[in-house]
């Protein structure tokens, strides 16, 4: 297993600038934004989506309700706080997706371009191990930093709210933290990313395949090839199976935080949404995706053995 330790460490070292610093910088930007917003407006809008009752997932909404002396029910409060958490998570998930996309595209391309592929192939690690280590890095190692920074942002915002909200109405610090959902949020993120790594396999593996195959313009190949094939499908058969499949596996539906679980669906007052996450394994979409993804990975490995410097 030392080979795997070496390969994964090497991937992390090469990509920590994107996978590690990306979320850290996002965290920093959010902190600065919140501080400026607080200084100027005295409040922060975290999520601009309206819920069923027309409330925004914002600290403003919390303060308004609190000032109206109308203590929100536990469930309603939890719902507001969920909105805030989800808003934060969505920002990070978007950043993660962009980083993962470009990192994967470069992983089997850049080293051929700078000729270091000749060095990587001169060490006793097989092409299969090399390609799989790159997939594992994006699927399950990169997300650790993103999860850590999402949690850091949660904690930061709850500290801010601890100073802002109570004392301006009926809401207490105890109320706020007991409904924070921080533990649930952490569990959701860990389990969600764990499953998402498999759910997104066909997407990740496609990007690795392109990265391994082409000698130029990996971005164009990765994006335009599926668009052209999908359009041909539409013209020829009048169906949209490919586009639907791509959209489906691009979605972050495995990660509960991102799918806006509403309290209405969960009578207990707090939805973890993990049921939905694991229910993916009961869908044919998951297994078809895994089969197609495995085929793409095989192709990426095969081409890795053939293609050297560009």
């Amino acid at each position, binding site marked *: 297993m*030392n*080979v795997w*330790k*070496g*390969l994964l*460490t*090497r991937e992390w*070292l*090469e990509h920590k600038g994107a996978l590690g610093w990306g979320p850290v910088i996002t965290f920093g930007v959010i902190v600065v934004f919140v501080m400026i917003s607080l200084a100027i407006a005295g409040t922060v809008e975290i999520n601009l989506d309206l819920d069923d009752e027309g409330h925004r997932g914002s600290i403003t909404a919390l303060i308004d309700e609190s000032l109206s002396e109308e203590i929100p029910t536990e469930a309603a409060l939890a719902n507001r706080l969920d909105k805030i958490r989800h808003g934060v998570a969505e920002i990070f998930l978007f950043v993660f997706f962009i980083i993962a996309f470009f990192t994967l595209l470069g992983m089997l391309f850049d*080293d051929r371009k*700078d*000729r*270091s592929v*000749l*060095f*990587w*192939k*001169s*060490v*006793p*690690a*097989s*092409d299969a*191990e090399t390609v799989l280590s790159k997939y594992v890095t994006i699927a399950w190692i990169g997300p650790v930093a993103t999860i850590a920074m999402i949690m850091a942002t949660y904690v930061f915002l709850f500290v801010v709210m601890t100073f802002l909200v109570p004392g301006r109405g009926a809401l207490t610090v105890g109320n706020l933290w007991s409904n924070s959902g921080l533990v649930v949020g952490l569990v959701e993120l860990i389990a969600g990313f764990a499953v998402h790594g498999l759910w997104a396999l066909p997407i990740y593996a496609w990007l690795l395949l392109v990265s391994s195959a082409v000698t130029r313009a990996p971005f164009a190949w990765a994006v335009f090839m599926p668009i052209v094939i999908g359009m041909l499908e539409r013209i020829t058969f009048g169906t949209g199976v490919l586009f639907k499949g791509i959209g489906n596996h691009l979605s972050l539906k495995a990660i509960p935080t991102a799918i806006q679980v509403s309290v209405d669906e969960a009578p207990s007052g707090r939805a973890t949404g993990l049921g939905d996450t694991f229910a993916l394994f009961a869908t044919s979409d998951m297994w078809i995706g895994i089969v197609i993804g495995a085929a793409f990975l095989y192709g990426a490995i095969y081409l890795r*053995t*053939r293609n*050297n410097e560009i």
Partner: protein
Amino acid sequence: MSLVQARGLTKRYGDVTALDAFDLTVEPGRIVGLIGPNGSGKTTALKSILGLAHLDAGDLSVLGLRPEKKRRDLMRRTAYIADTGILPRWMRVAHLLDFMADVNPSFDRASAVAALEKTEVRLDKKILTLSKGMNVQLHLALVLAIDTELLVLDEPTLGLDILYRQQFYDSVLNDYFEEKRSILVTTHEVREIEHILTDVTFIHHGRNILDLATDQLAVEFAKVTTSESGAQALRALAPLSERHTLHGTEMLFRGADQDDLARHGEVATPNLPEIFVALVGDHL
């Protein structure tokens, strides 16, 4: 057993035949020079030996393994240095050593560190900040810290200062080369390695032009410098090549009786480039 046994290697890239039934043998304890001009198939030959090129035909066994199928096993016992700059530029030296220690059980990190202490290469430096010469020193330190049987060098001193070049081959000879180990080296600077080679293989258009132990060169080949009248007589002995210089006519012979030649002019042993040019003259 031969470390490298290649028979009839053939590789085509579209219409271009890079290797055309090429043969190569590397025995233990030898330093084999693979010599040929750019585009002669040298690099393709080395790549197939390392399992990096897929052959269209031929039998190839390296350390008893088929490189194409068993590259990982092969690389535990083989080291490879290409012309400068294939080490990952973004990496720090210390991390590269850690990586090697993780993936290769026979890599001795302490010995690599000790070797680097004798150079300007610092462990906390990023590889992209190293000069070309330091890059080669680092790569050499990595390679020498692995217990390998075969070292493959592809134009290793390309673009290096003369000082580093000398040092490079000195290190390879002193710290790597021994009884059971072999080196396979290509270079366009033939003169630079001529004196260290035990065997040469000339390659041109992907074909073998000559395979010979270097100690046989003086027996097999002779260069005669002669006057115009001597040249007349010598032409009957079928010279490989004839050249007119300031000192007279220079003729190169293969397998000729050296006493015969000495009667017509001054006999000397030709160097490798002279032999190469004389042999390839027929094949152009």
